[in-house]
């Protein structure tokens, strides 16, 4: 199973519609083990839906999702599902910290609730993870509402990496942050992904972020992947969609529905 040929994650022929609105129209995305793929695309193009399908929060209408060669639709028992989920980490767009729990309880949530790690040890590991994303131990006992947006994202990142996932998803990691905080988050992401040696899938419409955290970039438009290549090629992709998006031009093949 764990040979280097099998993609760590693969979406094959994935389709998803809401009502008559087709969001994903046959998307194929293999991601090799240890690589970082960034999916770019405009708002409402189905980037979040793609990630939710990949991580199993949403079922595709058609198509399959493979993790390490295994078709995830065939995972049946709750125990297998929980074990499967343990391979993933995810940083949500709004951090999605639980607002009734303190920061350390948030970071240690998987440890205390799913893995039954004793609280004392879980707290130590949470504080360690917080330190890795540059948050001092003094925030451990605060509630999410007491942190700035940038700090919440960092706590969300700590929660995503604390249990050493094999695949991490980042949903718009820099959206809503000022450029400096955005750069801090980008650096932390690169650092953590490298440290864990994990496979990463990020979605963003922030090109600075895409260049920084991606080995490869793919562009999603109208329910399909219209281009994919090494991050270094993004400025000479020879693809009109990509060029328009990268340069942020109103004119071009991409039509904005109004």
């Amino acid at each position: 199973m764990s040979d280097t040929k099998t993609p760590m994650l693969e979406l094959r022929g994935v389709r998803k519609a809401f009502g008559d609105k087709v969001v994903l129209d046959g998307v194929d995305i293999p991601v090799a083990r240890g690589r970082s793929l960034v999916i770019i695309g405009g708002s409402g193009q189905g980037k979040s839906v793609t990630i939710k399908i990949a991580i199993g929060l949403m079922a595709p209408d058609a198509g399959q999702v493979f993790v390490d060669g295994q078709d995830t639709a065939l995972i049946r028992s709750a125990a297998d599902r929980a074990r499967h989920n343990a391979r993933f980490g995810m940083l949500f767009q709004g951090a999605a910290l639980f607002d009734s729990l303190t920061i350390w309880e948030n970071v240690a949530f998987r440890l205390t609730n799913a893995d039954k790690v004793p609280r004392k040890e879980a707290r130590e590991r949470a504080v360690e993870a917080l330190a890795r994303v540059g948050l001092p131990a003094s925030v451990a006992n605060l509630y999410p509402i007491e942190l700035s947006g940038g700090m919440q994202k960092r706590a969300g990142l700590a929660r995503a990496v604390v249990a050493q996932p094999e695949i991490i998803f980042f949903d718009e990691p820099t959206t809503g942050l000022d450029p400096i905080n955005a750069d801090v988050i980008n650096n932390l992401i690169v650092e953590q992904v490298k440290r864990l040696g994990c496979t990463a899938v990020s979605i963003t419409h922030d090109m600075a972020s895409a260049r920084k955290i991606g080995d490869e970039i793919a562009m999603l438009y109208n329910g399909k992947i219209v281009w994919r290549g090494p991050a270094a090629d993004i400025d000479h992709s020879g693809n009109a969609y990509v060029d328009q998006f990268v340069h942020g031009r109103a004119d071009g093949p991409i039509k904005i529905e109004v």
Partner: protein
Amino acid sequence: MNPVQAVGRSTLGLLRTAGSVAIFAGRGVGASLSTPWFAGQLARQVVAIGYLSLPVVGLTAVFTGAALALNIYTGGGRFNAEQIMPQIVALGITRELGPVLAALMLAGRVSAAIAAEIGAMRATEQIDALNTLSTDPFRYLVAPRLIAAVLTLPLLTAVADTIGVAGGFLVATQTLGFSGPLYVQNTWNFLTSWDIESGLIKSAVFGFIVALMGAYHGYNASGGARGVGRATTHAVVSAAILVFAADYILTSLFTAK
């Protein structure tokens, strides 16, 4: 759309909703009756749903008991039967008003709070986060609320019964000239244990309905802050209506024998 189509469509919609509520309830009950349980969450909900509802339920009960006593005294007077007022008040409170009023106060207080909290968690992706952290939201969020409501509403109802009868007692002894000891004795001798038990059984069902409606509407909230507002309204309205419907059904079952 012609009228037949309109009726057809809304019937289908109703059936679809009933189906999805039933599936949701099944998952909730399944999670409530099997481990792992989240004891901390359950304790929190027992306090939030049960303990913190005591003042509201108590105040409602005392005023209702007092008003009921006055009305029944007046009504009884038309047959020269004022003296059976304590017995009727006790019966009305334990069999009907105690359970229903406590449930309605909880529909307002608890269904709304559950729908708003879970709905906000849905809107901010906290429910998705629970899933990715290998924690079933039905176990972590839904089951503790269902269990807490089913356990605490009968207790609240017992309190409401006691305080409601006390409200009648106060009015009777302070303004209607009843003798205190006689009032208590008449009430006590008249009530059967089934009067009280049937009310408590009802209230356990009402507790389930109240928590279920809050959780269902919150869990399925969509469309940001407006969606959460809508979920809250739907939770309260549907909980109240279903409490009345269940009350009628249970009462007719209980009185059939």
